[in-house]
């Protein structure tokens, strides 16, 4: 399939694919087993200029968009979405600054993130606030030239490893949806520490950790945007980042398909390669079709988002929802195609199936994506003059 990539987009894909093939595949099983953070690979990604694909040149980036980033994420995800998540989460941490930060904040932090010298992270979730973001309890109280943060974030990707954190906290409990704000917190800020590191089903090379704020004092100019914009910034960030999760799903599904087809051609039972059985053929055909459909969806939505349209929450949710479900389905089927071998750690598909599950959970569960899509449909059709019932 030819997606009419420009020469530069093709180069991005090639470089990411080379890193996946030569650097990630040989180590993915060990990093997963040992729950080891992929620092070596992060250095390679930095040296190859991939961290700043979506960041403007003015801030040290490549000046591309969501689509360029998706191309890189997909290729990395084809080898390991634990490592690719680590990479992508730095972008999630950068987006609030990129979208709403003051010129000073952008100049200070974006070049460090774009060059890969520092990783970023995004701190929103708390024990009582998952899908319902409004449940957050972390507070930020203004004190002269400072804000003082108190509270605990949980399950923050790149927690403890990143240097730059975009953190959501309540600045005015009385103002409800207008009462939260985003801040940049740096590793090493007084009163900022890290809690427990989670043990996980999948994406075990990625770090998922608590952020603990105990009278954490940060200069007041670390506020992103204005006070009260926190929830808006969170939603706009997700609108931009969700196709990236879709790209992880496309890469993962492709990676599982690659293995399933190759294996089915080699494995013989009843005197024939199992790919000669129609039951296996149909599985592979469905897996390939779903994967390509997910890719087409992610590519076209990512490209559209890069034209800076006004409302795109629905499309962005679709670009996460479908590939995440596809990745879960395709990796599960890949294990089935490999049978007992697929269930063993000797082949990568068992890890791929464990990894796939996260795509349906983080950056808004797939139920939440469906809620978003349905709410937008309701609004869209409510605005329409035409009736289709008659």
């Amino acid at each position: 399939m030819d997606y009419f990539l420009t020469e530069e987009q093709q180069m991005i894909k090639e470089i990411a694919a080379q890193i996946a093939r030569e650097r990630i595949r040989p180590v993915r099983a060990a990093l997963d087993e040992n729950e080891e953070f992929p620092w070596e690979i992060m250095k390679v990604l930095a040296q190859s200029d991939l961290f700043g694909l979506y960041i403007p040149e003015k801030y040290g980036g490549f000046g591309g968009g969501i689509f360029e980033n998706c191309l890189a994420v997909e290729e990395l995800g084809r080898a390991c979405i634990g490592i690719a998540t680590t990479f992508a989460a730095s972008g999630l941490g950068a987006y609030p600054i990129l979208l709403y930060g003051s010129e000073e904040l952008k100049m200070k932090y974006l070049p460090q993130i774009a060059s890969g010298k520092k990783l970023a992270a995004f701190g929103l979730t708390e024990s009582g606030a998952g899908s319902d973001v409004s449940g957050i309890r972390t507070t930020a109280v203004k004190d002269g030239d400072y804000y003082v943060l108190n509270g605990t974030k949980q399950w923050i990707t790149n927690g403890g490893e990143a240097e730059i954190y975009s953190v959501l906290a309540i600045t005015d409990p009385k103002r409800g949806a207008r009462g939260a704000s985003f801040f940049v917190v740096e590793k090493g800020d007084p009163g900022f520490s890290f809690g427990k590191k989670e043990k996980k089903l999948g994406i075990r090379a990625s770090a998922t950790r608590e952020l603990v704020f105990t009278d954490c004092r940060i200069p007041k100019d670390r506020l992103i945007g204005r006070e009260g914009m926190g929830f808006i910034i969170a939603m706009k960030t997700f609108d931009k980042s969700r196709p990236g999760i879709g790209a992880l799903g496309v890469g993962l599904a492709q990676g599982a398909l690659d293995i399933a087809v190759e294996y089915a051609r080699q494995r013989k039972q009843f005197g024939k390669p199992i790919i000669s059985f129609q039951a296996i053929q149909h599985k592979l055909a469905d897996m390939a079709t779903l994967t390509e459909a997910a890719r087409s969806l992610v590519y076209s939505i990512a490209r559209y988002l890069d034209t800076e349209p006004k409302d795109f929450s629905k499309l962005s949710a679709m670009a996460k929802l479908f590939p995440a479900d596809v990745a879960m389905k395709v990796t599960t089927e890949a294990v089935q195609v490999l049978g007992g071998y697929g269930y063993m750690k000797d082949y990568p598909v068992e890890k791929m199936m464990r990894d796939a599950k996260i795509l349906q959970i983080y950056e808004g569960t797939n139920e939440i994506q469906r809620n978003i899509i349905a709410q937008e449909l309701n609004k869209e059709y409510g605005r329409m003059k035409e009736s289709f019932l008659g």
Partner: protein
Amino acid sequence: MHVVICIKQVPDTKNVRIDPKTNTLVRQGVESITNPFDLYAIEAALQLKDSTGAKTTVITMGPPQAEEALRQALSLGVDDAVLLSDRSFAGADTWATSRTLAEAVRKLEPVDLIVCGKQAIDGDTAQVGPEMATLLNLPCITYVRKLDLENGNESMRIERATDTGYEVLRVKLPAVLTVIREIGEPRIPGLRHKIRSKKQEIPVWGAADLGLEPEEVGLQGSFTQVVKVFSPPPRGERRLLSGSVEEMAKELVRILKSNNVPGF
């Protein structure tokens, strides 16, 4: 600090065959690659660029398509490239090649360091580095596995692999080094360098640009000529056993016995 890297484009030997009738390399359909050992030379130079901001220049002598190898080096981060290409360069042995490269290095002066791969996988002579050093009257250290600048970049501390271990040497710059794998894994291209590598102008220098006469280069300037290339005769019979492990083990023991292998 200016580092010059000498590289060579070679046939991908994984796919090379020798025509049994003519005893020549069958080059048709064989892809060209950058000599794998030269990728370590590029890596060594780029490490110096990373640590000291050294300027790096890559050169190769070869036909016009050898430009590909130079562009690959640029995509990895090398600053500049020069292609040494001229009809009269054809048929050069290692001496004539070294002569040509040495003149190019002179033209690129000031040069503080020249790095080559330990050998090229097509000829396997490992001669060009040392010959070039001879022509340039520079010290030469081969099989370098580690290098560190010292004394304000006046000299280098070198680890040189030997059959039994390694030697530690100190060399004053400028010098010629040939490097081995231990120098560091070749890096992956950077996006910015890759984009630059497609567009960057690569000058082509011929014999006249280097001030060399036709009898000093190529076949005419060579002391040696390849008389014959041949593949060694196949080494005896090979058999692949098949069947279950038990069957194969039985068959193996039978073969060993029938060949009077001691102990069977």
